[in-house]
């Protein structure tokens, strides 16, 4: 028995040999390769947009208008109307969709989440995130534009419909992370449910909600399809978002992309760079909010 203790059976802990090792390595390299395959187009796109857009972008490009005819070179005039339109329409969509989305998430999480209706709403907000953006455009065209005409507001309605389920879902996730002890503590001192939700639960989840909303705005700012049939695409600035056709950076890119003129294409690249910068800034802002103001995370 003593001999057995002195000489324990040796366990071979080295990496297995032969095909088992080879296949394992191949699998690992295939995973790394799949990541590289994704980086290539991303770098390619970003490089092209920056290389072609940077020479076009200037302060006057971003502010001056009206948008010059396609035949003129990109150095003349600018896309001021489109920048104004994008800001107006996205802001209006945000004002509509974010509060409603957060309230919807509050219903799901604080009131009816366990019941049949709550489950139904939760399930269909997931389904609604999959509705194609062009269908939202057609929807707003059918119920709004046919009766009241093209306007920035119609575009904002379409973008809002796209943002709503995204905001509901991201806010719901964040509200779920707020510990129940906070709610129970507030109930114990006699607060009503609405007061607990607004003064305790929401502030606790605010960082995550804001960050989710910023990401939704970043996606919405680049959407084209819902705007095509709701705002039209015009060359002049329209500061009145509630009436008359408008324009936006993405619709301008869409119109210019198929033009044979170098100037029109140049303006499209400039607009693309502007859009990407806007989206990245919002995304980074969301990261900063997440890092600095989120109290509870997974």
């Amino acid at each position, binding site marked *: 028995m003593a001999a057995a203790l002195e000489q324990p059976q040796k366990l071979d802990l080295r990496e297995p040999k032969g095909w088992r090792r080879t296949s394992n390595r191949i699998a690992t390299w295939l995973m790394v390769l799949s990541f590289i395959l994704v980086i290539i187009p991303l770098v390619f796109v970003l490089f092209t947009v920056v290389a072609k857009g940077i020479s076009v972008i200037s302060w006057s490009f971003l502010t001056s208008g009206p948008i010059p005819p396609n035949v003129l070179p990109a150095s003349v005039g600018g896309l001021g109307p489109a920048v104004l339109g994008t800001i107006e329409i996205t802001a209006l969509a945000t004002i509509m969709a974010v509060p409603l989305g957060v309230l919807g998430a509050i219903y799901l999480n604080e009131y009816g989440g366990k019941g049949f209706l709550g489950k139904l709403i939760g399930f269909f907000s997931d389904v609604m995130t999959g509705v194609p953006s*062009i269908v939202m455009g057609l*929807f707003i065209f059918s119920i709004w534009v046919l009766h009241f005409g093209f306007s920035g507001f119609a575009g904002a309605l379409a973008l809002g419909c796209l943002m709503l389920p995204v905001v509901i879902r991201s806010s719901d996730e964040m509200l779920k992370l707020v510990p129940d002890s906070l709610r129970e503590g507030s109930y114990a001192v006699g607060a009503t449910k609405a007061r607990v939700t607004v003064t305790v639960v929401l502030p606790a989840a605010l960082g995550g909600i804001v960050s989710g909303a910023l990401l939704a705005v970043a996606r919405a700012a680049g959407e084209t399809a819902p705007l095509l049939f709701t705002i039209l695409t015009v060359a002049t600035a329209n500061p009145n978002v509630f009436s008359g056709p408008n324009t936006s950076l993405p619709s301008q890119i869409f119109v210019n992309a198929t033009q044979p003129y170098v100037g029109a294409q140049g303006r499209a690249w400039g607009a693309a760079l502007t859009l990407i910068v806007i989206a990245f800034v919002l995304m980074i802002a969301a990261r900063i909010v997440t890092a600095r103001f989120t109290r509870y995370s997974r």
Partner: protein
Amino acid sequence: MSIAAKADPAIPAGSATGLSERRPLGDRTFQIVALGSGLLVLVILVLIAVSTSQQASLWFSTYGWKVFTNDWDPAANHFGALAFIYGTLVTSVIAIIMAVPVSVGIALLLTQVVPYRWSRPIVYVIDLLAVVPSVVWGLWGILVFAPWLNHIYANIGSAVKGIPILGNLFGPPTSGASFFTAGVILAFMITPIVTSLSREVIATVPAIDIEGAYALGATRLEMIRGAVWPHSQGGIVGSVLLGLGRAMGETIAAALVIGSSAQITSHLFAPGDSMPAVIANQFGEASGVFRSALIGLGVLLFAITIIINLIARGIVDRSARRKRGA
């Protein structure tokens, strides 16, 4: 008796039925407002179905089942949409075939291979891909990527010319703006969503299964096949379906790079058209039955994506529930 109970001064009003029955007006209003916002989702979905179907009814009532023929000629008032349905299917299947292996590969890389410290930057990169707007993919696709691809298509086309099947799929005529180009661009665009959904699914594999497989001496590949795959199969199928739904509805990038040619052909390098693309490209000049037909395509698209989403969410939810139950 109830009158007597109310009149009894010893019992404060309402106290017998508990505090919750006597909620202040503001509290109840807040609940109703929240409920209303939640119901908005259902209301919007119903409104989408009703209002777009109404606009599309002219198309369906005028042409009946002929809406599903391969005959699209707005100038001659022919509105058979089969070519667009075909194009939507072909491009999204190409996108899925390319995006799914890559997405699952990245999801496995993130969850099973790299340490947490490295997985964060990889996730950021994938998120960047998701933030590039559709129209920017389209702009790059039509002005840079398609001309470049056409050289490759031409080479492949002349190489497989005359070979059965391959020649029919990849042979000439070729065009930079084609089914295949649209499929590739769609693949780039759906990779982030399929990756993040598969990653969530794979992350639910119990650590005890993974550790058990390793403890039995499995290599990483064997562990993935034996522990990760059986557990996350269903959820990955669900995320693939959600990716398919996205690819089918993706409009602007496809509208720019697909070539806008209503034809049904086996040649993947030939120009084609898809449902969302034709809506985006032709809606501006449409009126009457033409417009009704385009909105009708939107209704079809809505119905298809809703069905796919219902199935996919069902699968994902079920696999998530099984995970929690286990």
